[in-house]
């Protein structure tokens, strides 16, 4: 059972580390494994401008576990060879005190993603906040819902990987 105690927060912080480590390695199966097995497990990547305007269009709108799986398939099987590879480094910091809702922990973190395209120099890809709902799944904390709300009004390029 997750709570607002040091042990639970350490587990949640470890989940965030697993998450960004998976993306920085571009290991999409490991990314998927950060989400709960629940059929409603979801990931959204959306512009803060849309959220503030009450608009739901997202850059990535995976509102069920099946969509998360399809995203992995597209990145690892369909798009191979069509895009210029790029590395990412994610920097995440949990902010504020999480809240507890029926055994689910709601956590807000800032994120900052640096990008280095193949053969290029490093730049800022996006900054924003993760709004996460964390549950215990198979004995470990996993995301039931993760929403990456990016401040970057205009993204500097096309996007392959989740934030």
């Amino acid at each position, binding site marked *: 059972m997750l709570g607002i105690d040091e042990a639970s927060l350490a587990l949640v912080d470890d989940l965030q580390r697993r998450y960004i480590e998976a993306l920085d390695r571009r290991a999409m199966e490991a990314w998927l494994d950060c989400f709960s097995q629940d059929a409603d497990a979801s990931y959204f990547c959306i512009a803060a401008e849309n959220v503030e305007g009450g608009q739901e269009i997202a850059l990535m709108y995976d509102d069920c576990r099946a969509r998360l799986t399809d995203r992995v398939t597209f990145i690892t099987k369909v798009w191979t060879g069509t895009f210029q590879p790029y590395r990412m480094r994610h920097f995440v910091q949990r902010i504020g005190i999480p809240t507890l809702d029926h055994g689910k922990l709601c956590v807000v973190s800032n994120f900052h993603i640096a990008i280095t395209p193949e053969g290029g120099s490093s730049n800022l890809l996006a900054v924003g906040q993760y709004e996460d709902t964390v549950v215990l799944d198979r004995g470990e904390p996993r995301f039931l819902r993760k929403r990456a709300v990016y401040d970057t009004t205009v993204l*500097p390029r096309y*996007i392959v990987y989740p934030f």
Partner: protein
Amino acid sequence: MNAPIQWPKAVNEIPKAIFTDAELYEREIETIFHGAQWHSLAHRAEISKPGDFKTMLLGRMPVIVANGEDGKIRVFFNSCTHRGNQVETASCGNRKAFECPYHRWMFRTNGELAVCPGSEEFSPGFDKKAYGLRELRTAEFCGLIFATASADTPPLETWLGQVAGTLAGALGGDGRLKLLGYQKVRYASNWKAYSDNDGYHAPLLHVGFRLLGWQGGQGSQTPTPNGHLAFESQLKPIVNREFLKDPSLIDLKATDPESGSRIAQLFPHTVITKHMDVINVRFATPISVDCTEVHYAYFAHADDSEELVRHRIRQSSNLLGPCGMISMEDASIFNRIHIGSFTPGNAAFQKGVKRFDEVGFDVKQNDESGNLPKWNYYCELMGFQRSEVA
């Protein structure tokens, strides 16, 4: 200084240097973006209520598209008529009035100057009526708002010509739309490389289509002499739905497969698509010779059920944008064309080309030659002479 660009005699070739030449880019801004063309800046659904506004660039010129208290949509230069300060900085919002913070001049949503403190000390004969926000010529088609900085631009219906029917089809038939939101991105590409490749291209690029067993249906491609291009095609059902764990994403809920795809590509570089259940206007802006900003604005139809709106949000978010399942590869091509264009010589169009001495308007659905009337128009507009030596 670079050698002058030589435009080749053969109409199926274009010089690669036009994508990378900074001096030419400056001339294009003046001739095309500040010149006698209509530029789509907003759809009425984005600014549906009185006081709603949106800021954009028309070429380099900042503009405000504002829905006035009187319900009329106008386009103004986003520059105070006093000392030229940018009046509005937000990308969109709702205002009772636009106030310039520099000397507190305040403009009504219809552009009139309402307040200018201290005017008793202004120059002799100062008249507030003469200092409203400068308004541009504006016209509307199916809710799409166009503006032009030139008095010489022909009437909008004339300018749209044959593309009008496809454009209406892409905008839900009657243009009664509801805004769903935006995806905004910059591409490391000249605006012409973006526009030349965004509208439609050979399906070979899209592995996603192939894996889904998704063949396009019968269709047509119609270029106009002034650089527009209209595509209409059927959408055939997807064969390998089991390739996806969640095939509901690619359902057709609002669309008759017979009229599944409608794409209007307007000169110089706006693309309006209705593909599957996605209604999308791509508002593009040239930022520099090697950077183009695109705002993908997505819409539902005003009469849609709540369930249909939800479906459009899912499909629009995931299918055809800058990381869409089908379109992510497009974006990578824009960038690669730009890089490749720094090499000497010409790019050549092949598929559908029948002769070298004049462009043809009789093009088939997947012909590359559909882009050539636009290039011919551009060549004439920019004053290039075709030359044997190139």
